[in-house]
């Protein structure tokens, strides 16, 4: 067989998702309004199918298409978690979209294309494939954010995201082109080999790294490149926000893995310095500004910036254990924000988004079960045991102390305490405040939505269960990062 096509099977999950995205698009077009449910059902089947296909690939590793595509444990694990994230978004979606009159097939097609983008980023072996995946993801995201055309804030958020996103892609691309000019190759592994002979104070290399790190920081949402995040998170339909905070973060983490670790591990000391600065700024900005927020979506957006700061601690450590702990943090973050935004989705109804913190007033009396779930989510985000959020923080602190940065860990824990305050405020509002007198089941009903409610319950309880037995998930993440260094 042609050497180029050797190992083409590595691309089967991507091929499957791409074909199914087209099938969903066509099926929805022909079936029309009355059989709209077919689109989400097909999407769920696509995800399950992809999971099975990826599952069969576990254990294999290598490259395909002349190094364009990489397969290693990280690819498999990251893809599996991306499916899970999109699956939850789909399960949350139906009633929310219906209430807003945007229950259309395209949204599922866009989700699948975005997922495909993440998959390509995760398995990309050359700068070109990685960039291709990134743009596929980004374009789908722009469209998703602006999907609710009648909503002024959503359109505004879409435009903002597009302009700033394009700028970030430009930065990243510029960095990539400098790297290409320096090493003469697009393949990340060849780049790593070529960089051995380059002096680390080489000006072009420094420029390339700065641009690449800036691009990654933007996609990840690390301060000071976080400006788009609160506006987009707040403006986008909550369902889209839920998605933005999930699979794309795995994709952004893949950028770090592929570009900085696979490609630039030799230059660790150069980009480590930049990451220390990013970490510090993110921790401070995210946690301090979140305190001032009245809007829960915006608060969670700033808390995202804070979480990115924590997970970057693992990157700063620069060791295999550090990267593994950062990956673990990413996965945990995805699970937590799926649950957090899922809760907002669930409490929203036609014409009303439960996005102000005050909307949660007295939830413990109105709906004790939801309040209990939100309690778990908030304590998990704050990093209080016995929730999984604690182990995520524990792992990154452990890694960063092992690397000798005790002072960074001390700053990290202090900001974790500050962060605890605004999560506690949500708990306080739910449990200690009475519901507003004009809010009752008559004029502000909590709409029954069994599917989303069951999903949310599983999602939130997982945070608690994983907090009691975090071993397997952590081992899985450590396994994923085995092949990387």
């Amino acid at each position, binding site marked *: 067989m042609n050497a180029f096509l050797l190992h083409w099977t590595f691309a089967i999950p991507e091929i499957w998702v791409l074909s199914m995205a087209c099938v969903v698009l066509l099926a929805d077009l022909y079936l029309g309004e009355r059989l709209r449910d077919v689109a989400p059902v097909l999407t769920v089947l696509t995800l399950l199918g992809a999971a099975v296909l990826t599952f069969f690939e576990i254990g294999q590793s290598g490259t395909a298409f002349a190094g364009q595509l990489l397969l290693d444990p990280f690819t498999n694990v990251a893809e599996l978690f991306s499916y899970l994230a999109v699956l939850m978004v789909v399960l949350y979606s139906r009633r929310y979209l219906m209430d807003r009159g945007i229950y259309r097939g395209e949204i599922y097609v866009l989700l699948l294309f975005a997922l495909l983008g993440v998959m390509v980023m995760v398995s990309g072996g050359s700068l070109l494939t990685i960039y291709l995946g990134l743009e596929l993801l980004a374009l789908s995201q722009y469209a998703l954010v602006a999907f609710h055309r009648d909503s002024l804030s959503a359109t505004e958020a879409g435009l903002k995201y597009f302009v700033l996103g394009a700028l970030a892609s430009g930065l990243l691309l510029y960095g990539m082109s400098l790297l290409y000019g320096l090493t003469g190759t697009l393949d990340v592994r060849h780049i790593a080999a070529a960089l051995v002979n380059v002096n680390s104070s080489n000006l072009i290399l420094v420029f390339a790294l700065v641009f690449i790190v800036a691009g990654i920081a933007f996609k990840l949402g690390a301060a000071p490149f976080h400006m788009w995040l609160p506006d987009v998170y707040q403006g986008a339909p909550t369902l889209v926000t839920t998605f933005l905070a999930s699979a794309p973060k795995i994709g952004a983490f893949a950028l770090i893995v592929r570009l900085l670790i696979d490609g630039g591990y030799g230059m660790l000391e150069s980009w480590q310095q930049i990451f220390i600065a990013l970490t510090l700024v993110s921790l401070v900005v995210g946690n301090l500004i979140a305190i001032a927020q009245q809007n829960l979506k915006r608060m969670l957006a700033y808390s995202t910036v804070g979480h990115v700061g924590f997970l970057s601690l693992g990157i700063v450590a620069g060791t295999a254990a550090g990267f593994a702990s950062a990956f673990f943090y990413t996965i945990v973050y995805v699970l937590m924000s799926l649950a957090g935004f899922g809760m907002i989705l669930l409490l929203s109804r036609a014409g009303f988004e439960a996005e102000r913190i005050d909307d949660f007033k007295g939830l413990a009396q109105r709906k004790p079960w939801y309040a209990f779930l939100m309690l778990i989510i908030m304590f998990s985000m704050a990093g209080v*045991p016995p929730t999984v959020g604690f182990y995520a923080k524990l792992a990154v602190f452990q890694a960063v*102390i092992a690397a000798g940065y005790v002072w960074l860990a001390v700053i990290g824990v202090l900001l974790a*305490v500050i962060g605890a305050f605004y999560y506690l405020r949500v708990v306080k509002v739910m449990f*200690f405040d009475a519901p507003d007198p004009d809010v009752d089941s008559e004029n502000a009903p909590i709409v029954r939505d069994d599917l989303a409610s069951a999903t949310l319950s599983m999602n939130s309880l997982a945070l608690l269960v994983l907090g009691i037995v975090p071993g397997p998930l952590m081992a899985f993440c450590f396994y994923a990062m085995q092949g990387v260094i």
Partner: protein
Amino acid sequence: MNAQLLSYSIWVPIVGGLLVLAVGDRRAQLARWLALLVSLLAFAVTIPLYTGFDTHTAAMQFSERVAWIPSLNIYYHLGVDGISLWFVLLTSFLTVLVVISSWRNVQTRVAQFMAAFLIMEGMMIGVFCALDAILFYVFWEAMLIPMFLIIGVWGGPRRVYATIKFFLYTFLGSVLMLVALLYLYFHSNNSFDLLVYQHTPLGMTAQILIFIAFFVAFAVKIPMWPVHTWLPDAHVEAPTAGSVVLAAIMLKMGAYGFLRLSLPIVPDASHKLAWLMILLSLIAIIYVALVAIVQEDMKKLVAYSSIAHMGFVTLGFFVFDSVAIEGSIIQMLSHGFISAAMFLCIGVLYDRMHTRNIRAYGGVANVMPIFAALMMLFAMGNVGLPGTSGFVGEFMVVLGAYQVNPWFSILAATGLITGASYTLWLFKRAIFGGIVHPEVAALKDLDLREMLVLGTLAAFTLLLGVWPAPFLDIVHSSVQHLVAQVAVSKIPA
């Protein structure tokens, strides 16, 4: 059975608490009975720990060790020695009393209330049993969540302020301990075992930094002056049962932390900074006791008195004398009974009058003779009268401290006098005298349930005061071992 005894002690109340939660608030009576059953069962499970305890060894007993998070080398490692055993028993015993005492006065969200206490019981026992640093930290932190809710949901008018202050104070204290524990991990061949930490050689600078990190965590929890300000707020706003658990058990955790972590892991820093610890303890004993005298709110008064009593405990630790340390442990136990009883007594009054202001009372003894007699006993215990448990601990601490430096004893002994003044003055104003307020005249004496709870505590206060030998026997070997351990320098040659 014996092998998993500690696991049962931890998980029976937690699982039982979840069951109570599942019963739901609508079936309040069922929730109460189930909670009582669970707490009795949980207490029964801990009794074999006492009967099967070997007093001749300082080694950990009833140990369990299972890999928990292999990627990070964390073990589910439990064990008790003479230092921790009494606190496990105290916790399970007091939870039974707490459930009984809240039978009537908690009427809203009963199942959640009972469940929070049971779950918290399991976590507190977990703290006293954990021998893995991360397991210890997990229980240490997790316990904040139920307490946060207990104060915030069932507390008084300023409950939100008090509970957030409580949470953030304690959280801030403990995160630095986490950093210290992680630091130790890398200096003890990648182990989180607290027993391994005890043999890890450490330089002086590292020891001092670790000591400070531990100190912040434990001093907040005890609480020591000047980080005690959360305690009066939390106590005043907490429901009676919350105050009982807070004073009787949670405060002991900070002190236990000093014994289990600070002293054996960083002995040289402990010696070097002992002057500071003694100074802070003496300030707590003298200054905080003076603050207690002027309080108008009975709960606040007892809260400040708790801080002063805990001052004796920390004083006893840092003179590094086995008599003093044993005295401290007895003092912790005794304070567990007496402070619980004092808060329950105030709760009894509050249930009837709905005020804790001393001025609103006066002459209670005329209408509630049984109550007055019992409270008298606890007040005497709080003062440290011979024959009550309060005397044994404080006497041993003062005695031990005298051998090291007579001035410590003299200053500490003045604390006994101030202690007598605020307690007796409170008693005189609230209980004795003529009836001034008509509401007081209408008070009813204790019912059977209240008598049962206070009577049990009275029995233990007297037992520990008259015949402390069985309590000391358990503690002795472990304290000897600890004192020997602290005497050896860990600075690498």
